[in-house]
């Protein structure tokens, strides 16, 4: 046997519910529906509106600056998202490395007297073209970051 389908809802003897209460119940249901819709729509609509900061959105490439910002024989520390990166410009061209010193985590800087990357905390020195340790306590070279130069813009590629 198939499920019995309701052909007709049998007439129900009314036990006098005042019209006010009926309206109240309908109002409650309406509120229920409305509040649910509002509760759902608010985050959905908020989510759809694009946020103002688009720095991370580019997922992959970050503009580090222009070639004028980093002349030959200098280096500059920029933020690639939440990672500090040092961009150097040497005779071997543009290079970029993680700016976190491999010794104890200080942020390195370009040392113009040495022409290399130096860490101000304990005197570590890194090669500005290869990131290799030249002297001092750092145990490992700086991690390289891919750098792409288009016209006069320097991009760092997140990988």
């Amino acid at each position, binding site marked *: *046997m*198939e*499920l*019995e*389908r*309701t*052909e*007709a*809802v*049998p*007439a*129900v*003897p*009314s*036990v*006098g*519910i005042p019209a006010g*209460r*009926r309206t109240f*119940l*309908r109002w409650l*249901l309406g509120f229920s529906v409305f509040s649910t819709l509002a509760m759902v729509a*608010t*985050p*959905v609509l*908020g*989510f*759809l*509106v694009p*946020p103002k*900061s688009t720095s*991370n*959105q*580019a*997922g*992959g490439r970050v503009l580090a600056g222009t070639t004028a910002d980093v002349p030959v024989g200098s280096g500059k520390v920029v933020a690639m*998202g939440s990672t500090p990166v040092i961009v150097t410009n040497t005779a071997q061209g543009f290079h970029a490395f993680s700016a976190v010193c491999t010794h104890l985590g200080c942020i390195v800087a370009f040392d113009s007297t040495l022409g290399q990357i130096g860490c101000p905390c304990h005197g570590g020195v890194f090669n500005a073209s290869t990131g290799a340790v030249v002297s001092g306590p750092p145990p490992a070279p700086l991690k390289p970051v891919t750098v792409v130069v288009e016209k006069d813009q320097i991009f760092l*590629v*997140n*990988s």
Partner: protein
Amino acid sequence: MAGRDEVLGATTAPHSAVGAKPADTWLERRTGLGALSGALLHVRIPIESRTWYLGGLTLFLFGLQIATGTLLALYYKPTPDGAYDSVKFITSGVTFGWLIRSIHHWGANLMIICMVLHVVRIFWQGAYKHRREVLWLVGAGLLVVTIGFGFTGYLLPWDQRAFWATTVGTEIAGSVPVVGDSLLNLLRGGADVTEATLSRFFGMHVLVLPLLLAALLAVHLTIVHHLGLANPKKAEPNGPEPGGKLKPFFPNYVLDEVIAWYAVLAILVILASVLPAGLEDKANALETPPHIKPEWYFLFLYELLKMVPRLVGIVLPGIALGVLALLPFLDRNPEVRPRKRPIALGIGLLTLAAIAVLTVMGAG
């Protein structure tokens, strides 16, 4: 008394009762949907049926996953370079992004839990018997597709946890005898987990599996509608007997279902706010983190593989899945009451206990 129709408004077309809206409303004249909705809603179900609304909850959660997943897809970038940053951006940069992502994350977990509990309920009530074999098979398909959803979706944030859990998971798939290597290649889009893997997992997760699930779901619900809800108290090989007590599906059952849906929504909101989905370090193929574990619903399999030889660890669950799918054909006992099915329930309980113990061991 304000009858249910008074409060809710009748939707049956020509034969509606006192106080119902006119049959040919503006919409009705232009769509003719009244008859369909009436046919779907105005059915009756056995008074003894006890579903705990688990199947409906799974459906609700699936709908929620579609909604939140679609929203996430508006910002997500399925490349190794873009995936991590875009997920981080969603979580910390987009308004309510954390909420949508966390609901999606917890929704996935709850959906699997509800689905498993639904399967257990069906098993316990013998609701896979008496003309429900095809329904059960389709359900087995739904189970596999849902697990597939979980597996493919887990990789998408492309952080260390995602990457290495996928590596381990596909490695297990690669251990299947005979077809293992081809399967591994197929899953990973190559020999290793790379951007090719991310591409095909994304495509699976966002297109293939949703369409497949929707199709299976349509069949599943149609059959459920056709056969009605099972009666846990007595076997009904030919449907409910004439004298059987029934109650309306709409509004009684539907109302309870919606209340359950609200309750689960509240749980999801609490979980999303108190335990938001996090993000570990970006995936690094050269650095294996110390404790890689697959997601919790694979832990039992992972633990089993540690204890038995590889082959056994692959074949045994395979056989178990086969038995599960073919259960209605293997269990010919016409009884549905628990007392009359000691063997089936005994085996079922043991299997559940084993899976639970293995899961806990895997988590520890």
